[in-house]
């Protein structure tokens, strides 16, 4: 008699069970993070987790930093959702954010103070979305017409966007040659998101939640959203039922790129108030993981974003308190992602006990 294990594919899994598996993964990741930090710092895990919570929500500023970090991740994930639902591998969100950010910074520099702030902000959001639309439409056009590989195309456009940003920085830097644009309109605050309800980041929260809700409704209830899902499942089916696949690809990438471009404006006007290569903070890539892990569900995306933001902000405090450097927070994020992605495997497959030679 031999006993062992083998994997079988699950036919279906109840949502409850799937979420239970994810919850176990989160808990396991927390345990492993704790063990790793304990091994490095030789400190007790309760203190480590206390520092984590303290770092993420321990003061009013820290709480809002975490919320803002979550919102900025969520808006990019929402922007990526239509493209990925169409199985269009948009790896170019970084570039789309950057061109949106460059557009926003340019508007702040050239029009700040000469038009009312509300008008300026409205124009900035539109123009930055347009910049993102162009950046999204280019690879979509070539995909639709020539069937080029969109993964490489969007990826390479990131580097074009990086050079474009460098160009803008050299154009606007003070003093010349310093590579630093500095905070734009520091005195007048023209083009900055205003403080609402006594909260600095209120406008970020409102904008991001509205965008996220609109994307969710669009994907779920609109005809266009349905077309995206069909094209994503099978282009042939889509053609068979009379969907104009080329048009859907281009339209969807305009939406996706447009939201990512607007995210660039939200980052520039709401948070950084400058333009530099650092404004994306890698969100264009992290958001891909957020969107996939949440299966494009808006609530799940918000949850995953919140969790990642919480852990990243908390990790900063762990690093400070236990004399580690910033790599500690990257290790923690890596461990969490490993478990979360790993959990998807156990949602799709199950481990079964093999008895005797029965498996043959």
């Amino acid at each position, binding site marked *: 008699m031999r006993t062992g294990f083998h994997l079988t594919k699950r036919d279906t899994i109840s949502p409850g069970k799937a979420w239970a598996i994810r919850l176990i993964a989160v808990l396991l990741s927390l345990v492993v993070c704790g063990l790793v930090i304990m091994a490095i710092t030789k400190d007790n895990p309760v203190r480590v987790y206390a520092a984590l919570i303290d770092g993420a929500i321990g003061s009013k500023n820290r709480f809002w930093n975490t919320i803002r970090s979550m919102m900025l991740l969520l808006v990019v994930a929402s922007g990526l959702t239509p493209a990925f639902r169409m199985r269009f591998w948009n790896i170019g969100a970084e570039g789309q954010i950057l061109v949106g950010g460059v557009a926003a910074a340019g508007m702040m520099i050239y029009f700040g103070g000469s038009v009312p702030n509300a008008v300026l902000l409205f124009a900035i959001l539109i123009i930055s979305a347009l910049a993102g639309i162009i950046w999204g439409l280019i690879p979509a056009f070539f995909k639709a017409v020539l069937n080029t590989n969109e993964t490489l195309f969007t990826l390479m456009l990131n580097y074009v966007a990086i050079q474009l940003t460098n160009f803008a920085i050299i154009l606007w830097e003070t003093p010349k040659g310093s590579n630093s644009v500095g905070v734009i309109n520091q005195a007048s605050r023209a083009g900055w998101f205003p403080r609402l309800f006594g909260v600095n980041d209120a406008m970020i929260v409102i904008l991001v939640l509205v965008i996220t809700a609109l994307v969710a409704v669009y994907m779920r209830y609109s005809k266009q959203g349905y077309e995206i899902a069909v094209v994503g499942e099978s282009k042939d089916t889509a053609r068979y039922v009379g969907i104009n696949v080329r048009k859907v690809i281009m339209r969807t990438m305009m939406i996706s790129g447009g939201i990512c471009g607007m995210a660039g404006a939200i980052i520039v006007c709401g948070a950084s108030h400058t333009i530099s290569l*650092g404004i994306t903070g890698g969100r264009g890539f992290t958001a891909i993981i957020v969107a996939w892990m949440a299966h494009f569900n808006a609530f799940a995306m918000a949850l995953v974003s919140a969790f990642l933001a919480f852990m990243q902000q908390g990790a900063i405090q762990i690093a400070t308190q236990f004399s580690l450097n*910033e790599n500690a927070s990257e290790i923690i994020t890596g461990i969490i992602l490993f478990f979360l992605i790993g959990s998807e495997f156990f949602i799709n497959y199950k481990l079964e006990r093999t008895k005797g030679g029965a498996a043959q």
Partner: protein
Amino acid sequence: MKKKLISGMLAVVFMAVTLAGCGGNSAGGNSGTTGGGTQEASSEGAAAGEATDASAIKVGVITIGDENEGYTEAHLKGINGMKEALGLSDDQVLLKTNIPETEAAYEAATDLVDQGCNIIFANSFGHETYMMQAAGEFPEVEFCHATGYQAASSGLTNFHNYFTAIYQSRYVSGVVAGMKLNEMIDNGDILPEDAKIGYVGAFPFAEVISGFTSFYLGARSVCPSVTMTVKYTNSWADLSLEKEVAKQLIADGAVLISQHADTVGAPTGCQEEGVPCVGYNISMISAAPDQALTSATMDWSKYYTYAVQCVIDGNAIDVDWAKGYPEGVNLITELNEGVVAEGTKEKVEEIEAQLTAGTFHVFDTSTFTVGGKSLEDLITEGGDNEKYAAYVSDGYFHESELASAPAFDLIIDGIDSQVD
């Protein structure tokens, strides 16, 4: 289908991880020490004019890099020096390292204020406007920014700039380089006209230009035939790029390398290529044992001790602070015995004595020309060059005297600055 999904996802994750790695640090982490749960702001009593007990003081430090990067390492040494000099305990100094030049700098500053800091230092050029933003919001906290230039014009009484007269150290390290070139010429290794220095610069603006000009003037004061080529990395700290640029310069005929970039990239390349080099911030002897001659450096602890002492005593901090050799702030790191040319030590001591006494001025306008003309003639011609009139008198350019940040940004004859 699901299998494809997973493999696709892994591909995305892989790309995300590798590309995020290329992009550098963005999240901005920290290292150092803080007390466990000190969130409530408790920064009363920090304003100038009001004394603060030394045991109650809290110092916040924001740095672009960490101890693995020479520029920040020199600052952290200065902070430790200040800590010892004033007898502060570990939990009175809160460090936030690896803070990029984005809103992360502002967030770090507000978090330090929340934790009760009375005085906050930031060390990178691009941090400046974020410090000004925080300084405007927290008038009871002192903010000091290294390498910046806007304190005087900011209208904020609690915002200050500081730097050192690093051009003096650069000049002395240039003399060491020139002596080495002379030795190579005397040994018949190179012809006098081949005495070409390669310089790895970060960005083409005053801080870097002033530094390499004084270095070059030092080298030329002992080796008249020397020329210099400057290439830029467009980054403050990029180890592999600095190494690559150093090697390119060597391939183009440079027989000696110096740098204004923050890592050991250039000396590592020089050690491999067998070309002597002069470093910045920290001794490069461990990175290039057979090639490093010395490094231009400064003792930041003098400023940190001064500024924190000001807060303790309730005195105002200088709007612009830039001290040099006379105050013992500037120096060069140990000479690499056996690698530097004979007689270097004596020559260095001679120049250092003159700098300390204030009898010698690095930017002596009779020692250089710009486009074949003296600086005085350029100023008389007018146009853009009129702005230098405020700096030039008594036959020399008064570097770091009007403001702490370097101001000399002309490319003098003999230097080829290759901005691409």
